[in-house]
Each structure stands twice: as C-alpha cells, then as structure tokens.
C-alpha cells in the first residue's frame, strides 16, 4: 500500500463536503480548512434525506431527478430505480474454487455492469492467486497475489480465489458508519447510499475482506461505456470521496436476474440464489458440497460461500 506520508496527504487533500460534515457533526468549528467543498456542489443531493427516511413520493422524485441528470450527462436514456427486496428472499453466493481458473472475466464484467471508474481504476472483484500446496495448510489471504500475469491460466500448481463483498450477516462495516449510509437490507444485500457517505472510511477499516474501495479521485466512465440500467443503491455513478463495493448486482438480482460476474464466468464456477429456497442452487451446494467462508473465526457470517464442486 501507499506510504503513511501519502496517506496523510490524501486525508488533507481529500477534504470535501464529506470530511466537512464529519467535522461539523462532531461539533468542531474549525471548518476553514475544508475548501474542496466548493467543487460541483449539488444542493439537492446535499439536502436529500437518507434513503431509509424518505417517503415513496420523495424517492420517486429523487429517482426522477437522477435519471434526468444522468441521461443529460451521458447523452443516453438512463434510468435509476430503487427496486426493493423480494419477500422471503435472502441472497447467497457460491464460488467453486475447484473450477476457477483465474481468468478475471468476472472482474471486467463487474466493472462494466457496475460503472466502476476506469481511470482512476476501481475494481470490486479481486482474484488472488495461491500456491496449490498452500491450500493444504489453510488459506491465508495475505499470501494471495492479485497481480499475476501469465500467457494462459490456470498456471501450473496454482489455484485462484476471487473476492468481493461477502454481504456478512453480522457486517462490521455497517456498524461503524457514523451517518447510517450503509446497511444490510432485508434480502441481505449490504448497500451504500452514496449521498450519505462522508468518506470517513471507517467501514473500510472495519471490513476484514478489503471489499470496500474508496474514490480518491474523480471517478471516470465514458458515456459510451456507461451502463444505463442503474439502481440508487448500486451502480449509479459515484463521486470523489465516497466508498463503493459489490452489491450482488442489486440492479439485476432484484429483478430476478443473475449477477454479471456469474454470467461472465466461462467455467461456471459462480452460483447465486435464494438461501430461503430449499430448491435453489445455493442450497443444493450448501447441502451436497464441502463449503467454507473466509475468516469464519471473526463471526461475520458471510453469505458468500466457497465450495469444492
């Protein structure tokens, strides 16, 4: 990671309305050092209530405003919705590590589907490469290498472990958020309301899986690349100074579709479904396959399961 000095610089320079809000909220009056606030100030989203406090009419208004705003910005028909959770559904994800070949198709399918910044580069999925013999000793994430680059994969004597948000049942990240900008919805998706994220990054420190990514710079997705099917709590454009992460493709799965990473996987290693449905793929693999979760000792209760197919 970057040097402590760089980190410090980021913190000073990253001062924005979010930092400012944090200062204000803790009662400190010395706010003159928060000049970044002047950037492209959006009063409406500033005053917007937390998503969970809004009435249906208010939400509709916001969705309408954002759809119009992004349609104009990207010159195409953008719709932002806020489709809610289905009844009797809690999502679970399964990844077959005996199949994964480390091709990273999932990483880029995710970037495209979820409008992740191309430059600066943000990627929600990270694929770690491990020595095969290391698996016999148990997986230590610190030993994983995300930067591997081979002619073809799988490389000999290696195995691969893709990682993103685990959508923990007891999510440490949501507990530390000072503004309530991130929470776990009834279908188990841990969501972020970007309008309420102040960029304090407590959630990033709390997440044991490194799943949350911070927009140090202004994110950048071209009009050509933008995916116009957006969810308010998912793949709509983010701004500098907010945290983002995998949402299980909330804009797809709440309409019954599979996540983008799953469909991109050439070996069929990725499985997704309703944990409450005994006939689902995810329940089948929990019942019939050897499964594990990462860092189970932390009792975060991930809903992302790894299995041997």
């Amino acid at each position, binding site marked *: *990671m970057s040097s402590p000095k760089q980190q410090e*610089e*980021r913190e000073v*320079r990253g001062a924005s309305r979010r930092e*400012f809000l944090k200062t*204000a*909220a803790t009662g400190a009056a010395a*706010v*003159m050092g*928060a*000049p*970044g*606030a*002047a*950037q492209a*100030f959006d009063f409406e989203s*500033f*005053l917007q209530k*937390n998503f*969970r406090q809004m009435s249906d009419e208010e939400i*509709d208004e916001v969705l309408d405003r954002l759809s119009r705003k992004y349609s104009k910005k990207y010159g195409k028909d953008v719709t932002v919705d*806020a*489709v*809610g959770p*289905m*009844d009797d559904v809690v999502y679970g994800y*399964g990844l*077959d590590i005996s199949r994964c*070949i*480390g*091709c*990273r*198709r999932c*990483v880029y399918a995710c970037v495209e589907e979820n409008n992740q910044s191309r*430059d*600066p*580069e943000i990627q929600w999925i990270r694929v770690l490469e491990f020595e095969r013999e290391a698996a016999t000793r148990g997986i230590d994430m610190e030993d994983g290498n995300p*930067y591997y*680059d081979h002619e*073809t994969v*799988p490389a000999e004597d290696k195995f691969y472990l893709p990682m993103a948000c685990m959508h923990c049942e007891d999510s440490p990240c949501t*507990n530390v958020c*000072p*503004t*309530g900008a991130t929470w776990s*919805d*009834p279908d188990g998706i841990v969501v972020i309301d970007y309008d309420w994220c102040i960029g304090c990054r407590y959630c990033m420190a709390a997440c044991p899986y490194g799943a949350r990514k911070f927009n*140090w*710079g202004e994110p950048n997705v071209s009009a050509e690349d933008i995916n116009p099917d957006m969810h308010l709590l998912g793949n709509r454009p983010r701004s500098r100074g907010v945290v983002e992460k995998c949402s299980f493709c909330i804009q797809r*799965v709440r*309409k*019954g579709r*599979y996540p983008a990473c799953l469909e991109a996987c*050439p*070996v*069929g290693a990725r499985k997704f479904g309703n944990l409450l449905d005994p*006939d689902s*793929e995810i329940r089948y693999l929990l019942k019939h*396959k050897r499964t594990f979760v990462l860092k189970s000792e932390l009792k975060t209760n991930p809903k992302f399961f790894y299995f041997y*197919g």
Partner: protein
Amino acid sequence: MASNSPDPEDYRPPGYQLVTWVILGLAVVVVFGLTSIRTDHQPDTSRDYPSRPQLPDVEPVLLPPPPMDDEYFPCSDCHEDEPPNPIERELEDEHDEMDFEHGTLWCLDCHDLNDREKLHLADDALVEFEDSWQLCTQCHGKKLADWRAGVHGKRTGHWRGPKEYRACVSCHNPHSPPFKPLAPEPPPLRPENITPNGNVRLEAAHE
C-alpha cells in the same frame, strides 16, 4: 508527468471561502439530520420500497450445443462408401489431426458403427449429437445431479425467472475433455503505479 508531491492548491476553485460559509450554515441543518439517524444502525425492515417484484420460478431450458465444424458433415458423405471398421486403431487416412485423449475410450464407445450420424448408449440405444449429455452422464453419473441442479456447468438468465443451462460439450470437447486454458484479462494496477488522487501514473500507462 505525474509527480510524487502534488500541489495542494489544485483542488481550490475560486471563491471557495464564500461557499464554505454557505455550507457552514447548511451544516447546522444537517447536524440535526445526522443526530436523528445516528441512533439507528440496524436494518430497517419496516421500510416500504416503492416496488417489490414477485417473480415466478421457471424450469431451466437446455441450450443446444454450439454448431460443429461442418468439415465432416454429413458423415455419410464418406462413410456411405467406407466399410465400417470396428477395430480399435490409430486413424491415419482421416480424422488423424484430431486431439484425442479421453480416458481409454475408443471412437465406437460413443459413435455408432452403423449410423455415423448418431451416438449410442451402453445399451445400444441411439442418441442424436444434440443430446450427447445423455451419453456423457452414463459414464459420469455423479455429474448428472450437480449439472441438473445448476451446480456443475453454468446457468444464465434469471435466478428467478427464465434461465438457460449448457450441454457438457459446450465446455468439454468430447475428444479431449479437460477445459482448455485461457488468456487472462489484465491484472489490476499495482499501488506504486497509482497517484495519491487515484489516477494512473503516466509511466505505468505507457508500459
């Protein structure tokens, strides 16, 4: 060129002080807002979303295998005149460039000796090429249940709603079944190639 010690001035737009005061005023409003939500970190299960779709479950549809090389179709073009030869051997006059390694199998464990357009099962029942999964799962029975459940192989479409799944031969070449290696997509940037505000260092971009 990107530099290591960025100039702290570059984020200050003109007139920032004025705006800062405006914001200070607004902040007072927001502080009230914040204190009212801070008490509540638990998921708000009571919240009524504008739309909660309830979709039906639908049986998955088997996609036909991708079309084969038409170089060898129809088989009868040659095999009509070619006397069938059941003897296990190295083929030399035709089909010799084919990668063939599947356990210790021989062509006629799968292909029918008398009807080249068909495959045959252990009990000699004939099977169309499109239904080759019936052949595969006769020997790989343990995969059948996993595949039907969507856990071996791949489904696409809707986890709830219309979905498709794929035949064995769309991932496995029956003549050389291990999944073939692929070129990986590019790795993520290394932290040393990223500037403090998250952009790519120019040197790295031109590598």
